[in-house]
């Protein structure tokens, strides 16, 4: 790879395509009574048109924060404190609220975790769909209603003409999430940010909703940023995957590569701790310790206190994303000029 790092290597390095979303060195801060917390630190990634990028990590790793920062719905006092976000060719991180409003729904859609609370209980599903459609598209009420019916049909709501005037509480959780998807896709945005879209649903419904989301986005060529803590969801749905740890992106690459051959010690531990993906292990692996609090992130690599391979350099110098196989990983193990010699696999696996 060249010296200027290129982050967009969807499906094996097709650098010609302009990414839908390009995030560079994104930094999000939360000023608090006890000092400023850095919730996101130098996060960089791209999403190509039609691509599904999975974002994984433990809770608190910054995955939802990344989605909220991109669509500028951070909870105050959180704010973007550095870096750039580009939507297509347009820089969007520096837009003020009034300039950003037209982008939401029209260019970037969003789906939240809990379908039970995402819909306003006092407005019928039809009212919420029609107001969204009419906000973005030049349709009259009747045309918007037709479109709303069509959307409900597409997301698999049976007998939509009877359900359009129903209120959210009259739908089941799975049905509500279908409505939420219809709302997010109503204006055909180029990018959808799905923040744990199936976490709050019954296991039996989760797969259906994921399949639906994937199919609808594929049909429209919509790119998806799929935020989840569930590697199973990623394995099924995503093209590429980004792994986050303590507000930093530590590994990004094609989904098979990251799962089969993780490059960062944390990702390796993460994969080893998931039953059924790594086949050969009898006993589930557990990473020692826990993710640091945002107020106490160690110097150097954030993972160094838990890392079996950590050396002096890891404690003082923070690694960039470095090419590692078909992926990129933020670990000095992959520094071509001064590679850290890994501790042998057996020792690492036993948690030394």
């Amino acid at each position, binding site marked *: 790879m060249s010296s200027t790092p290129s982050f967009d290597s969807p499906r094996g390095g097709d650098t010609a395509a302009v990414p839908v979303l390009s995030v560079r060195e994104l930094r999000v801060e939360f000023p608090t009574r006890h000092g400023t917390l850095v919730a996101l630190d130098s996060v960089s990634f791209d999403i190509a048109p039609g691509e599904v990028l999975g974002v994984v990590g433990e809770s608190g790793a910054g995955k939802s924060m990344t989605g909220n920062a991109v*669509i500028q*719905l951070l909870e105050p006092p959180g704010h973007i404190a550095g870096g750039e976000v580009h939507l297509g060719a347009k820089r969007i991180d520096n837009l003020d*609220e*009034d300039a950003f*409003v*037209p*982008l*939401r*729904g*029209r260019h970037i*859609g*969003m789906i*939240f975790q*809990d379908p039970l*609370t*995402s*819909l*306003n*209980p*006092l*407005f*019928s599903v039809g009212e919420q769909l029609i*107001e*969204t459609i009419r*906000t*973005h598209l030049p349709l009259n009420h009747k045309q918007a209603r037709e479109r709303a019916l069509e959307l409900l049909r597409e997301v698999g709501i049976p007998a939509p003409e009877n359900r359009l005037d129903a*209120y959210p*509480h*009259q739908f089941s959780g799975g049905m509500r999430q279908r409505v*939420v998807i219809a*709302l*997010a896709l*109503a*204006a055909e945005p180029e990018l959808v940010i799905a923040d744990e879209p199936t976490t709050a649903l019954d296991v039996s419904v989760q797969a259906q909703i994921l399949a639906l989301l994937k199919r609808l986005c594929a049909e429209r060529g919509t790119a998806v940023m799929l935020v989840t803590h569930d590697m199973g969801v990623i394995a099924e749905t995503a093209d590429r995957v980004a792994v986050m740890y303590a507000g930093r992106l530590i590994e990004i690459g094609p989904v098979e590569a990251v799962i089969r051959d993780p490059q960062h010690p944390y990702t390796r531990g993460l994969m080893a701790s998931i039953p059924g993906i790594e086949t050969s292990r009898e006993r589930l692996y557990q990473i020692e310790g826990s993710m640091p609090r945002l107020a106490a992130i160690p110097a150097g690599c954030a993972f160094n206190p838990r890392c079996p391979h950590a050396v002096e350099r890891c404690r003082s110098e923070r690694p960039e994303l470095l090419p590692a196989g078909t992926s990129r990983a933020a670990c000095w193990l992959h520094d071509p000029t001064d590679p850290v010699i890994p501790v042998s696999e057996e020792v690492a696996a036993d948690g030394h």
Partner: protein
Amino acid sequence: MLAFLIQRVLQAIFVMVVVALIAFSLFHYVGDPVLNMVGQEATEADRAALRARLGLDQPLPIQFFQFIANAAQFEFGISYRSARPVTDMIVERLPATLELAIISAIFAVVMGIVLGIYTALNRGSWLSNFIMTASLIGVSLPTFLIGVLLIYLFAVELGWLPAFGRGQTVPVGDWWTTGLLTTSGLRSLILPAITLGLFQLTLIMRLVRAEMLEVLRADYIKFARARGLSKRVVNLRHALKNTLIPVITIIGLQLGTIIAFAIITETVFQWPGVGALFITAVRFVDIPVMAAYLMMIALVFVVINLIVDLLYYAVDPRLRVQGGAK
């Protein structure tokens, strides 16, 4: 729906019966009504005659039934103090109280909601902070003190507005007199209406603000923003509707409070309403007037409670559908 309605009406009747029992007990156990009416000098025979005429020689349950029957026809006997029928005394003073209460209520609700929304949406701006601080004074101060200070400032020192009374009134229909159609009547209304409404205004404002801040944090508001709805639509269509529904209940109940608090304002401004009548009755232990006032206020509260319940039911689809399914 029907079950809900019946339950609420039964509850209302229960409250009314309890209040009637209290009012009835007042008649019976607080002082001797006959003694109160004829004084010490009357002969034993006079007293017995009056006792019989008032039905006080009947067994208690029959007297209670008679009391309720009379009350249902707005018949509360004769005032101990002025020896006039209590109902007449109340009816001639009712328009003054109702006009004052209604104008105050409109003032309090409209200003309360508008200021509540403003301070919620512009949290931290200097004007919001100023309004919030001022509202603290509004909830902390006794109504009568606000009234007295307003009189001192606007009537005594500045001489802009009348200090007391209802101004000129004109008759409307058979028994209603209004001060709303004359300049002096309207001018006289300003200070009492502000005094009476200020407490409710600050209460409604703080309530609307707190509720709205709560709603603005809700997921569906975030999702509404994520759908690309404009700030205006999100705030004034989605957030406002969700804010106002729980607020309706409290606002409704506060309106009942306005009529009760009119007692104080009427005393401060010498407003010729039923509240001032009640205070005089308490001071002189004029039981029939107290009982009648109590029943009237109870009726107002119970009716307002009922209306609020029904309104709540009408605006919240969640209740509506669950109720319909029952």
